[in-house]
């Protein structure tokens, strides 16, 4: 075995096997984290994240810090159960909204179709943002999500416009 001492200047010879693989969403905990991360559970203040000095942990499955603090403070079992129920319903509601937005049957269950949608390559910007001046607010967002008719002029008789609808520049 002879290890290469020098690599190509553009690192093109470094094999992809060294790439870190993203953890797919396969269970409820991962789905919850996905929904939280992309703003389906609570809207995210994206600009605040940009300004943060400390990084959120790369461990996606660690419970939120405030939840652990409440455990340490010895919250009562019934209080914990109520909170768990609230979070569960929030999760289901978020999941339903996600399913609806993605054209998946709205079941509130993490089924195969939902997992597939969550595991698609996607942009890291959250889907739901706080309704400040950051980006557009969600109401404008909803208007943009509607399809709308527009008046397309039709060709008159006499010379046809030779240009087609090709998308090739």
């Amino acid at each position: 075995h002879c290890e290469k001492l020098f690599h190509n200047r553009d690192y093109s010879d470094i094999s992809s096997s060294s790439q870190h693989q993203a953890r797919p969403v396969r269970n409820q905990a991962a789905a919850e984290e996905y929904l939280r991360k992309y703003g389906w559970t609570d809207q995210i203040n994206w600009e605040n994240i940009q300004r943060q000095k400390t990084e959120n942990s790369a461990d996606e499955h660690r419970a939120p810090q405030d939840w652990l603090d409440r455990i340490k403070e010895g919250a009562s079992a019934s209080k914990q159960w109520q909170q768990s129920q609230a979070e569960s319903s929030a999760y289901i509601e978020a999941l339903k909204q996600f399913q609806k937005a993605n054209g998946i049957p709205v079941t509130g269950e993490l089924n195969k179709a939902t997992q597939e949608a969550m595991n698609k390559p996607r942009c890291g910007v959250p889907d739901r943002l706080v309704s400040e001046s950051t980006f557009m607010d969600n109401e404008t967002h909803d208007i943009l999500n509607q399809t709308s008719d527009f008046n397309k002029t039709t060709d008159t008789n006499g010379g046809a416009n030779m240009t087609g609808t090709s998308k090739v520049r």
Partner: protein
Amino acid sequence: KKRFVKILLSPSQREVPVGPDLFNRAPKMAFSKAKLTWRLMGEGYSNQLSVEEQKHVLRMAFRMWSEVIPLEFEEDNHSPASMVDIKLGFGTGRHMGCTRTFDGNGQEFAHAWQFGDIHFDDDDHFTTPNNGNGISLLKVAVHELGHVLGLPHIYRMGSVMQPSYIPQDSMFELDWLDRKAIQQLYGVCNSPFDTVFDWIHSEKNEYGETIIQFNTYFFRNNLYWLYENRNNRTRYGDPIPLSVGWQGIPSSGIDAFVHIWTWTRDAIYFFKGTQFWRYDNENDQAYTEDAEGKKYPKLISEGFPGVQGPIDTAFYNKRDQNIYFFKSSNVITFNVNTNQINGYPKRIIDVFPPVVQNDHPIENLNAAYYSYHYQSIFFFKSNFFWKVVNDWDKKQNPLLPINGLMPKKNISDQWFDICDVHYSMLN
């Protein structure tokens, strides 16, 4: 700090084709400058593509937005990084001091900050356009730029702002609704044109039959656009420099285009200053000498006795076989059969009276254009146009004056998204 301002969109401030209800919402944020700089950071080059390929694709992504809004982008590799408006880079895991860690191959492929920077996850397999396998860097870049400019995710089929990546067989483009979305923030492109015309040419179809076709062109300064009337937009990839598409005529500032088309004559002329050129359709370039031995360019006064250049604009009216030359507040008609002007010059306002009082360009027209698509004549001045009353208008309303000018409208309300791009992005 990024240079942006909170703006209240209102009809008096921006020409934005939106309903009044949207103006009552929270103020929208947008860059306030007309030109933004960008840079692909040296420490953020991708390991997958050559630097040239990366820059080429990013340049194309910036250009695609520039083609639909009055905003230009210029690559800046010299200024201090803090002065660059948009910085882009590729990274993996914890990258470039970013607060958001990439997750490796799969799922998240990029993110962007409004009015800020764009990061691409180099653990994901990015490809150049027309390279089928992998994630199109162009599509991702256009999407992330949309965020930088102020757009959120949009759950609409066909939108470039959908959060999930959707592979496509052919090149993608910004569709009508995506254009409207970004124009809600930045307004529409609205600048005067030098000349507008339909270029008639004949071709043979598959059966050997000659068919007559037309293309609509808009000229401004040194650029031109082919306008697709059916699609309410310009041809993808336009504008193009005049010198590339129209060889032999001046490379900027064309005053007029005239196509004399009779049973016995078929000649195309371009005018600039005191001169004019004849265009050779067969060879797609200007004549230096035509079949009749006439050399070009010629003085307007020689080719059209009685007409002194420079002119503002002109058009050929096939109904009366006159060329209408416009200069200041006057119009001169030149008959192509007699080669003479007759009883002119006259005031434009007398020959083409206003339908609505005081709604008239009066003088210094930018362009006069007969549209085969609309079967109407239009006068252009500044950002507005006036339609000349035609037979159909008269049938609808017999009280309209012959050759009257209908009330003015915004050019951008009828011909959409004819936008300049930065010269560095021209092919």
